[in-house]
């Protein structure tokens, strides 16, 4: 009996690949594009951060220039209150023998009061 053999010239090619056209670019291009976008993003973030630093510097120095002025005004006001309180104390306690005038603290330091009742003007009127 004759054995079953392939046809002369062999079998034709078998189609095992999908017959769909490949879309888009090569994958490596997408990776590159992602890298480029990220690089640009980080560049912008760095630039923005540096800009914020400069804005903060500007604001900080604007305040630094004003500090002596504001401090002088508030010091003068506190000293005024302190001197008035001293004078009041001297007037009240002039008859008491051995009264120790001045600061209640055991120190020469000027002690800023914790609260200072102040006159209010404008929008912050007391109810």
């Amino acid at each position: 009996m004759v054995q079953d053999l392939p046809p002369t010239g062999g079998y034709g090619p078998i189609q095992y690949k999908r017959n769909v056209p490949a879309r888009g670019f090569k994958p490596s291009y997408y990776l590159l594009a992602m890298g480029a976008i990220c690089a640009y993003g980080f560049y912008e973030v760095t630039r923005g951060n540096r800009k914020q630093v400069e804005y903060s510097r500007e604001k900080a120095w604007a305040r630094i220039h004003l500090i002596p002025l504001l401090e002088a005004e508030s010091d003068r006001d506190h000293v005024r209150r302190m001197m008035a309180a001293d004078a009041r104390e001297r007037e009240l306690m002039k008859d008491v023998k051995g009264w120790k005038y001045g600061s209640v603290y055991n120190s020469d330091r000027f002690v800023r009061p914790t609260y200072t009742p102040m006159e209010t003007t404008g929008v912050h009127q007391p109810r």
Partner: protein
Amino acid sequence: MSGSRHPQFNQTVLIDKTPLPTSIPPVQEVGATSAPLLSSSYFIGARCKDYNEDYILCKHEAGGRGEVECLKEGRKVTRCASSVLADINKYCLKEFRAHWECLENNNHRLFHCRAQEKPYNKCVFDNLKLEKVIPGVPKGETPVHLK
């Protein structure tokens, strides 16, 4: 600190209005609100640098007694700042007002008011010879207010 607390006492309002003794020379307080102060801060810093540093140094060296001992330096600081504001009001009132009103409307953010700041800075420089310089800007970079 202590500024905004309302005096709430039962008997009376205990606000001390006694003026300073006459032995201490009087000085008119600046009286400007935050926006004009912020707007003019760099010019105050430019003209009053010596007085400001004197005052801070005096307080530093006074060892806790600076509030009482540095009143004289403090008056100089206040007079100098007042002179700057008076000069700005005299020569650049329009630009000054435009700038601080812009600051007032933009949450006091300087970078929102560059359009108003440029003519203002120019006017102050032309008339008062005071320039806005931000210390410590990295070398070779344009300061933010000139960009």
